[in-house]
């Protein structure tokens, strides 16, 4: 394991952050992340993160929910406990649509949120970036770029020199 987690550079504006992330990516760094107090679309593009797969999870969850909602009603009303209600057919599909719809929404929503948290690795009680004292400003008004030591191109001295060339207001080491 690397002796440190990485190097963290601090910026004042989202524009500087994105610019720095783009230059780091162009310079060959891949294992890095930016941290910001609000979503910045350009930042994830700059670090080369394009596909998030959340939509696929929501789609699968929704399909499963709808299918299970419909099949549940079909099984109950046609197979397990057929009940004659006002002479309607056992398989009276128009009456099953609403529960099917609600189950689709329910499963899509739950799988979306759970899927997002799981892909993000949350809940995560400990993460090295929190060891940087200034990092608590990442949820307030500062913007951070962290190049991780696990990156093959990472070199303690070189990377620090590189980050310093990006107009960072502050550069600090991220201990484990």
């Amino acid at each position, binding site marked *: 394991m690397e002796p440190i987690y990485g190097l963290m550079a601090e910026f004042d*504006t*989202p*524009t500087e952050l994105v*610019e720095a*992330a783009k230059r780091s990516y162009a310079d060959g760094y891949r294992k890095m992340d*930016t*941290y*910001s*107090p*609000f*979503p910045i*679309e*350009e*930042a*994830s593009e700059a670090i080369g*993160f394009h596909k*998030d797969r*959340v*939509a696929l999870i*929501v789609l699968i969850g929704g399909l499963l929910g709808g299918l299970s909602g419909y099949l549940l*009603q079909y099984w*109950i*009303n046609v197979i*397990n*406990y057929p009940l004659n*209600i006002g002479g*309607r057919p056992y398989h*009276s599909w128009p*009456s*099953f649509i*609403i*529960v099917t*719809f*609600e*189950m689709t*929404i*329910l499963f*899509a*929503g*739950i799988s*979306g*949120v759970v*899927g*997002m948290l799981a*892909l*993000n690795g*949350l*809940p*995560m*009680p*400990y*993460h090295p970036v*929190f060891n940087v004292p200034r*990092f*608590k*400003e*990442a*949820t*307030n*008004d500062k913007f951070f770029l962290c190049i991780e030591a696990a990156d093959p191109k990472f070199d303690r001295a070189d990377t620090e020199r590189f980050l310093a060339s990006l107009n960072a207001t502050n550069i600090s080491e991220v201990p484990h």
Partner: protein
Amino acid sequence: MHVLEPGHTFKSITDKIANIVLRRPVTLGWVAGFAISFGVMQILLLALAYLLFRGTIIWGINIPIGWGFAIINFVWWIGIGHAGTLISAILLLLKQSWRNSINRFAEAMTLFAVACAGMFPLVHTGRPWLAAYWLFPYPNSMGVWPQFRSPLIWDVFAVSTYFTISLLFWFTGLIPDLATMRDRAQNRWARGIYGLLAMGWRGSARHWKRYETVYLLLAGISTPLVLSVHTVVSFDFATSIIPGWHTTIFPPYFVAGAIYSGFAMVLVIAIPIRKYYGLDDMITMRHLVNSAKVMLATGLIVAYGYVMEVFAGFYSGNVYEKYLTLNRFEGPYAPFYWALVFCNVIFLNILWFKKVRETPIYLFLVSLVVLVGMWLERFVIVVVSLHRDYMPSQWGIYVPTRWDYLTFIGTLGLFASAMFLFIRIMPMISIFEIRTLLPESKVKAEAEVKH
């Protein structure tokens, strides 16, 4: 008019919203407000305890009016909830950035309103501890299942899905702000609790991207959901053959009425809050005026619904429908009907005046009238149709008892207590979404950076 008054920075936004919870001492005004609400909530506990002891006989309901206050209040409360979802989901999809400062507490309002609403049908069953096997497809030892061709079961699925998705939407929206609270709390316990709830959020670009996707998708699925919920509520009425209920206008007219009363509740909450906490730079006049306009538009749709009901009653040529219309006009509940027409058809038009829309105190009063009007609408729909249907030998009269009133008043206390607690322990305005309203939050193109 601005969505956010000028002069703010990222830091001032964070400070202003977070400090209401973290730095501001507990004030006498808040304590008094909470104490009164909490006291009123005790009435609810008392009324429910007595209900469980004696049964639904303590209410004024009896055949033919089996629904009474329980269903009136259920429909009223759940309608109020709809504005929260409309603001958070539909306005997000329509890219209406003014929603950002009112969505958080509007969503909280939705949750508390749906909680109040859900309680009514549950206690209306008389034996709520048995409701699990009546309402949910749970494999019990008798081998029987709920009746899936009944709108009452559709309602169970619609309302429980609505509550769950609203809770997820609200909580997902809170995660980044909980991280802000964690990083700013000075008290160890507060830091621990916010930290636990924030689940280690650190604002990583990868996280934000997935977060934004799921937030947008939640908005996308909440939009048909919220429209479906009041539609399904209206099916409880519309799929029956009772005069006045068996009509195709019910779904759109119920949804419009829900948004109408919901925005009234948003204003009733927002106007005192912005005054008391000095938030008029974030909840600006623009928000109040826009809410008033939505209220006016949906109110007029509701008024159109009333006109169509009268027209359809006479045009149908059906003697029972015609009688129902006349019975609304001049029957024993006529004062309720005319009060409803006053609130929702006549008085509502005061919102055409710019002066009224731009004066918070007037808006507050108009909103109260709207809430009363919508409650009366549900009263007229439920009671007038049921008390005289086809056979005069089945006719009856419904008089609410003191327990009906106490239960209803008690839920107002529950709702207000929950709102008071919410504004004290959670950031009531979405901090991260307000930050994105600042021009500095946009990444400038390279050409602009160079010079």
